[in-house]
């Protein structure tokens, strides 16, 4: 199939798809005129029922917790997939650190970068912990807090003296952390079953609205999810860094 034929097929079918999607979008009630009942129901009822003021987190982790469980396992599986795909293949060897690639310079970092890196990393880490622990009160939660916390070791790595992967946390600890995160979610759900309610029901004491320990299992699941997300992101980034900087093929295929 030549490129021209493919492009002609694509353009004609895309015109049809765009026409139908546009027709469907025109039947929607118009931008800004949201009619539906479910959002209004949760807005009215959510704060009293769950004592949580951030209703997006409450929907994510309490009302629709099964969907979040599925999404977290997509994350887990994707991190596992990256690890499996990027472990050194049989015909590659690990290049020792001292052997320098002649075409590539390894710049050392200056004192300024190192001095700026430490407060930046601590600031980012603290911000991440704040975001994840206040998930039920203000915008935040497990997913956002986990991603922000995962950026902090990367800043430490970037400000380090030699570009070596060994400054990042060791892989086995990250894998254990990721498993704790994924298993913790299921454990909270099973605790609901053991207490006689439904799976992932909010059974912990609800506390008073606006305080840090309110809304029961929402706070617990936020912490657990953030551990998992941070570990997954750090695993993925460290696998890519290891591939880009350390692993070298033996003998070049196709020059090089």
């Amino acid at each position, binding site marked *: 199939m030549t490129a021209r034929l493919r492009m002609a097929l694509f353009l004609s079918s895309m015109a049809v798809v765009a026409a139908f999607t546009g027709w469907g979008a025109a039947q929607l009630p118009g931008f800004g005129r949201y009619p539906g009942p479910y959002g209004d129901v949760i807005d009215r009822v959510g704060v009293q029922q769950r004592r949580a003021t951030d209703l997006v987190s409450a929907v994510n982790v309490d009302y629709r917790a099964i969907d979040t469980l599925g999404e977290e396992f997509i994350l887990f599986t994707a991190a596992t997939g990256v690890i499996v795909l990027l472990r050194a293949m049989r015909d590659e060897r690990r290049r020792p650190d001292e052997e320098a690639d002649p075409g590539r310079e390894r710049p050392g970092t200056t004192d300024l970068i190192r001095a700026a890196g430490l407060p930046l990393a601590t600031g980012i880490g603290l911000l991440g912990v704040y975001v994840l622990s206040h998930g039920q009160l203000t915008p935040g939660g497990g997913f*956002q807090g986990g991603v922000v916390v995962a950026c902090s070791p990367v800043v430490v790595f970037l400000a380090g003296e030699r570009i070596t992967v060994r400054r990042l946390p060791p892989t086995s600890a990250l894998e254990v952390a990721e498993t704790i995160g994924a298993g913790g979610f299921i454990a909270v759900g099973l605790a609901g079953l053991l207490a006689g309610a439904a799976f992932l029901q909010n059974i912990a004491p609800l506390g008073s609205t606006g305080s840090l320990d309110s809304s029961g299992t929402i706070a617990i699941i936020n912490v657990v999810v953030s551990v998992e997300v941070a570990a997954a992101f750090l695993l993925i980034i460290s696998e890519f860094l290891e591939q880009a900087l350390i692993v070298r093929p033996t003998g070049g295929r196709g020059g090089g």
Partner: protein
Amino acid sequence: MGETSGLQVVVYVLIAAAGTAVVLSRELVKVAMMLSFLGLVLAVAFLTFQAPDVSLSEIAVGSLALPLLILLAVSKTRSRQG
């Protein structure tokens, strides 16, 4: 009932332009930078949709983690070609 504000219109047009720029760029480093810009504009758009949680996620992921991964993949594949 209100109207779509001027800021919203500008942001949506910027999103369409950024998406087109990502697709039409041919060098990979430029693609990564354009993707980072698209993530930033999307985060502003999510703020105009009154969605601060989604905007937080999009800033952290779309402007930071994704371009980082793309640049690492590019550096790995480029290094083999000598």
